[in-house]
């Protein structure tokens, strides 16, 4: 049987969910009997090919996030919003109470210890969106895996269910938002 293909990415997240995924430690070996990774920070593959499962960490804060997210949706049969930021914007969305200029000025002009104050402006930099969005504002999401981050057990649980062809269900002891 061919392996289940998984792609992962971090949008406006902190990579904490990815680190937590790796907390599976030696259980990863058993998992890799059944799955292989396509586009992911784990593989450094830059573009997503056709996949069975896409794991999205982080919300959507800039134009590049939107492109990546759409690429994942176009290529993944099942898309999972992983972690607080993908699900409701999380900590990055705390900037939504301020306008973008205020945020940039606070960070790059008026911030403590800023040298050569200026707001970065380069064609290489993805344009920031006005607000940070949960990913379901942009694409259809099939499943949600809450947690900040979700534990390795929670990842194993949802992947285990999907590999077994079952509707994922998170047991109460693995359900938390922090």
């Amino acid at each position, binding site marked *: 049987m061919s392996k289940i293909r998984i792609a992962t990415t971090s949008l406006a997240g902190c990579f904490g969910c990815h680190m937590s995924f790796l907390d599976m430690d030696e259980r990863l070996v058993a998992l890799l009997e059944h799955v292989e990774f396509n586009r992911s920070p784990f593989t450094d593959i830059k573009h997503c090919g056709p996949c069975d499962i896409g794991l999205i960490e982080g919300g959507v804060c800039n134009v590049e996030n939107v492109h990546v997210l759409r690429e994942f949706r176009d290529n993944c049969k099942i898309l999972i*919003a992983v972690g*607080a930021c993908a*699900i*409701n*914007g*999380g*900590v990055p*969305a*705390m900037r*939504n*109470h301020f306008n973008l200029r205020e945020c940039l000025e606070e960070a790059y002009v008026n911030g403590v210890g800023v040298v050569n104050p200026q707001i970065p402006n380069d064609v290489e930099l993805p344009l920031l969106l006005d*607000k940070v*969005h*949960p990913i*379901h*504002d942009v694409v259809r*999401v099939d*499943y*949600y*895996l*809450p947690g*900040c981050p979700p534990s390795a057990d929670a990842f194993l649980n949802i992947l285990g269910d999907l590999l077994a062809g079952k509707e994922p269900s*998170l047991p*109460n002891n693995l*359900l*938390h*938002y*922090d």
Partner: protein
Amino acid sequence: MSADTKQNLITQNTITIDGQEIPFQAGQTIMDAALAAGVYIPHLCHRQGLTPHGSCKLCVVDIASRSASSHNSNRRLQAKFAVDADSRSASACTMPAVAGQQISNNTPALNEVRKTITQMLFIEGNHICPSCEKCGDCTLQAMAYHLGMLDGHFPQFFQHREVDASHPTIMLDRDRCILCELCVRASREVDGKNVFAIAGRGINAHLVVNSASGKLVDSDLETSDMAAHICPVGAILIKEHGYEVPIGQRTFDLHQVSEIGLEKIILTKARQPDE
């Protein structure tokens, strides 16, 4: 004794919740009777000893109509979550217990409705749990766990709400307020003050402080007041007491929201986080 009178005696002072017969005393609500009998009906704005407010609607139950099956309402039948066309929904915390009531409480359909209500409470405010001091001790969060809520479902409002940090020892973060009025009632009915009120309607409803400046610092709220500790979410917090209990030992790391009598534990913890 005829069968009829016997039946009367049995149903005289009892209601039935999910098939379980429960006694009640005159003047009790369905919620009072249920809690006294150790039956959990989900609730956020109810607290024993305070006047029921009936605002959160988590305690919604279905009460079978007496004339069951005589007239079906099509509208109810078509409703998305219609459970029983011959029942009506009511808030258990405000509905008086009446002898013979047949009540559905812990049903998949009602818990689905409750989950939707909880999702609305989340998306209407700004609930960034990972950065909230109340995380792990929060009844709203525990309710969401209890109901298996995985996401907010609806678009986030990202409302801008005012934080009041003026008071030297008490913090008011309206981002997390669910307008349950527990603080309003605790202040009036227990503390003998009148520190808080809800102003505005609908989406503009918000918690106000009854002081000339509208700021907490100019109110007579003190840390010893019940109103300073009763907030079920992280909207009213005691300053300099954040994150004192490690993950794994917080209230809802150790307890389920459905345990009866938890309010006392939470309140004690809020007052003496070190113990």
